[in-house]
């Protein structure tokens, strides 16, 4: 089959073995590269964390290296997918953990993938060596507008691909939302700056304080399109959506007209630009995202007594992690559900004194597992407060463009198949395309877009996605690992948080905790297979299986795209064509491998790999 090739490669061609004694020796291992949809599909179906990660992070590999106490390697494995592991190890929205097999019913709690990502960064050696696969310079010049997560990720990938990159950033510091939107108690700035610097020092030309737009002193997009081979817009969603209220116009923004009423995003950005911010004794926050929670927690730190977040639906449906809600509640933040603000209240002197809300009931489903809130007529009530922070969402600002690009109905930039906007040479990535989403989505999107840009710039595809299958001699896990409970993230005591306003709340795993947590990972990239020709159907493996993970089968579903679906189980002996490991149920404990009398069970490591064409 042409899809498969057998090569013998040196392991350190792809892996850094600098921490092992074998460095310098020729280590050879048989490896197969496959583009068969069944193999690619297997990776997608069976490594739920990686599939869920917008940046396609090879999670099992980096957790495995933590188990080997190779923190530096683990950090580098993360950097292959995203340039900001330390940042995302703190503030990632963690779609991987929601998907983690360890969190499936009956398996316990998901692996703390995010905390481990942070641990890799925290414990890597001082002076740790960074690995970059650099391509020969291409001579192409790329301009990137906006040094947020998407811009930085694209800058990194495009630079390593050999292009000369210049970033234009309006603010004084790079980082975008990371620098200006997220409070320091969640993301220390020295770490952020270090990780940004790792990208910039590859040769990226960073120009801060440069505004792109149609104004007189602004640099124009048309200029950039003229001076560079390609331009990438990664300006994100930096504009707050105004709070719609009764009795005001559609585009009126009460934060501009009423004292003590502010947009949460502006509030945070001003705070991080260094302005003195103040809040009243009673603070109301409306909105249901991370920004709302951050505003509430900042308010608490600024001395507010009562801080309440008012949400339209219920806690079940808001898109933030449960940990974050818990920490906020512990700090004294209260969350009220099923209410929508309808009017601002003012006293006789016209000063803001509170909000009128209307009660909601839950309505139909929205995308992403969220719910509609339907106001109940006549159920208005008043909630007195001194400060109102509005954090109901963000939108893109398109008035920076002096060119006309096609937008979709939400006002976001529309991209073609090749990742390009309707203007040739003008690309866009991150929230500017997708609307307000998460940092990891921005990074992931920028990464994918960089490859497309590269294809466009070079006129051909330079890399191909394959599955790299290599053999594993024996199970790397022990059954006892499955009973380790999820290690809680140590946090600063409450008394240490409020009074010392910017102390990072989460203190990170120490090495012991990291190792314990790493052991919990099932290493889903391991695939257990039974050699049917040598299987004697004795069921010894089924006998020792910890779950319903090894099955007697008579068939397997093949899906439309050529990938495998579920196994067809057989209970009658004369129908049992094979005994097969259901890798979806398998928790990679290795019990079957050890017990097989004919040693017909094999383990392979299956990883997504990009081959140069």
């Amino acid at each position, binding site marked *: 089959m042409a899809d498969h090739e057998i090569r013998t490669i040196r392991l350190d061609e792809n892996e850094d073995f600098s921490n092992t004694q074998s460095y310098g020796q020729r280590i050879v291992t048989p490896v197969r590269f496959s583009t068969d949809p069944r193999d690619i599909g297997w990776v997608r179906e069976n490594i739920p964390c990686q599939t869920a990660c917008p940046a396609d992070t090879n999670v099992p590999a980096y957790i495995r290296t933590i188990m080997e106490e190779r923190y530096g390697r683990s950090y580098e494995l993360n950097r292959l997918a995203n340039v900001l592991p330390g940042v995302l190890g703190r503030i990632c929205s963690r779609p991987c953990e929601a998907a983690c097999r360890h969190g499936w019913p009956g398996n316990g709690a998901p692996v703390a993938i995010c905390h481990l990502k942070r641990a890799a960064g925290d414990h890597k050696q001082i002076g740790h060596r960074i690995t970059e696969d650099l391509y020969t310079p291409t001579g192409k010049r790329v301009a990137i507008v906006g040094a947020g997560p998407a811009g930085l990720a694209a800058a990194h990938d495009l630079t390593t691909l050999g292009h000369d990159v210049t970033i234009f950033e309006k603010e004084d510091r790079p980082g975008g939302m990371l620098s200006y939107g997220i409070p320091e108690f969640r993301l220390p700035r020295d770490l952020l700056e270090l990780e940004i610097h790792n990208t910039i020092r590859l040769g990226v030309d960073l120009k801060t304080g440069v505004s792109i737009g149609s104004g007189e002193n602004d640099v124009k997009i048309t200029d950039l399109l003229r001076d560079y081979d390609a331009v990438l817009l990664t300006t994100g969603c930096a504009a707050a959506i105004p709070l719609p209220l009764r009795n005001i116009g559609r585009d009126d923004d009460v934060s501009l007209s009423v004292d003590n009423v502010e947009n949460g995003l502006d509030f945070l950005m001003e705070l991080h630009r260094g302005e003195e911010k103040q809040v009243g004794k009673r603070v109301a926050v409306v909105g249901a995202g991370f920004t709302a929670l951050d505003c509430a927690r900042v308010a608490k730190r600024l001395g507010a007594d009562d801080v309440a977040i008012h949400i339209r639906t219920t806690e079940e449906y808001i898109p933030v992690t449960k940990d974050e809600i818990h920490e906020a509640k512990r700090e004294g933040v209260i969350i009220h559900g099923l209410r929508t603000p309808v009017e601002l209240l003012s006293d006789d002197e016209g000063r803001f004194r509170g909000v009128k809300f209307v009660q909601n009931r839950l309505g139909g489903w929205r995308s992403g597992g969220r719910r509609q809130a339907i106001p109940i007529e006549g159920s208005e009530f008043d909630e007195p407060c001194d400060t109102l922070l509005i954090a109901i969402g963000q939108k893109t600002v398109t008035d920076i463009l002096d060119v006309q690009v096609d937008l979709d109905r939400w006002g976001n930039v529309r991209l073609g198949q090749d990742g390009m906007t309707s203007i040739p040479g003008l690309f866009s990535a991150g929230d500017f395309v997708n609307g307000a989403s998460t940092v990891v989505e921005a990074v992931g999107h920028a990464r994918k877009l960089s490859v497309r840009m590269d294809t466009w710039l070079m006129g051909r595809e330079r890399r191909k996605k394959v599955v790299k299958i290599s053999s594993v001699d024996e199970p790397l896990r022990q059954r006892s690992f499955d009973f380790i409970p999820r290690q809680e993230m140590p946090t600063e005591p409450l008394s240490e948080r409020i009074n010392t306003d910017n102390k990072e709340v989460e203190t990170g795993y120490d090495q012991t905790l990291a190792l314990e947590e790493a052991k919990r990972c099932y290493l889903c990239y391991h695939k257990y297979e039974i050699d049917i020709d040598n299987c004697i159907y004795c069921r010894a493996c089924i006998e020792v299986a910890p779950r319903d993970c090894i099955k007697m089968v008579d068939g397997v579903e093949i899906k439309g795209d050529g990938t495998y679906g579920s196994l067809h189980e057989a209970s009658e002996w004369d129908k049992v064509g094979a005994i097969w490991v259901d890798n979806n149920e398998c928790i990679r404990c290795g019990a079957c491998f050890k017990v097989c009398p004919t040693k017909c069970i094999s383990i*392979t490591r299956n990883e997504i790999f990009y081959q140069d064409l």
Partner: protein
Amino acid sequence: MGNLRQPVYLEEKLEQVRESGRLNIRSKALPTWCPGCGYFSIVDGVTMAINQLQINQKDVTVVSGIGCASRFPFFLDTYGFHTLHGRTLPVATGIKVANDDLTVLAIGGDGDAFAIGGAHIPHAARRNVDITYMVFDNGIYGLTKGQTSPTSVLGFTTSTSPYQNQDRPLNPLLMMLSYDASWIGQSYAGDPRHLSEMITQAIAHRGFSYLHILSPCVTFDKTSKTYSNLKAQVRNLPDDHDSSDRMAAIGYSMDVDTPPIGLFYKESRPTLSDKLDLIVDKARGRNARASG
């Protein structure tokens, strides 16, 4: 590691197994042996052999005695006769004498064959009854939960030999070579491919064929004939072994420490039925047919 060199995809393999038709020779009910038992390998081997020789299932009768191995007929979809402890061979002989067209498989464990049933074996062998006698040798009594058997090794500790077995084990192959069995082979349950090949040959042989199958008892023997021990011990008979050379076969049969697997000895001579036919002919005053 095989699947790295030669990728295996489940649905293709299942199709191959199903196409072969050997699943049809199995019973519907699952075998009741302990998971991991070597006997599973033998069921698989027999189904493959019957399949390969294209013998109609209805023409197969499996006779057994008492013991774990003798559960065997229950796990095949063929005619079967589960008789009394040690009395397998007389029953099988009776069936064969009554209907020469049947393929008769006699099955027993080491206890059934060489302890209580030992007296019957020499006679079945010298008469050259055209049956295939497969003895599953795990060197222990499984059904009565772990006592010594005639093939238990010296020093083996069981519930009835708490101070270690002091009796030397029998050498069934040597016995069979001296009893004049006309086909004698040995195989190992942990090598399913070899096993099915040997079963096929044994069934194909016309005359009394004796196949000795080394198999672990995973439940009651954790020290002696385990998979790992047997795997380390067995070796293939040399390619140049002449299966008509009984002295050479005797030589190999004496090697009990590293038991050779393969065909030891084979000869062609009249079966019991041939001789009964001859007697009939003689009684009727006709000339004997050309012998052989």
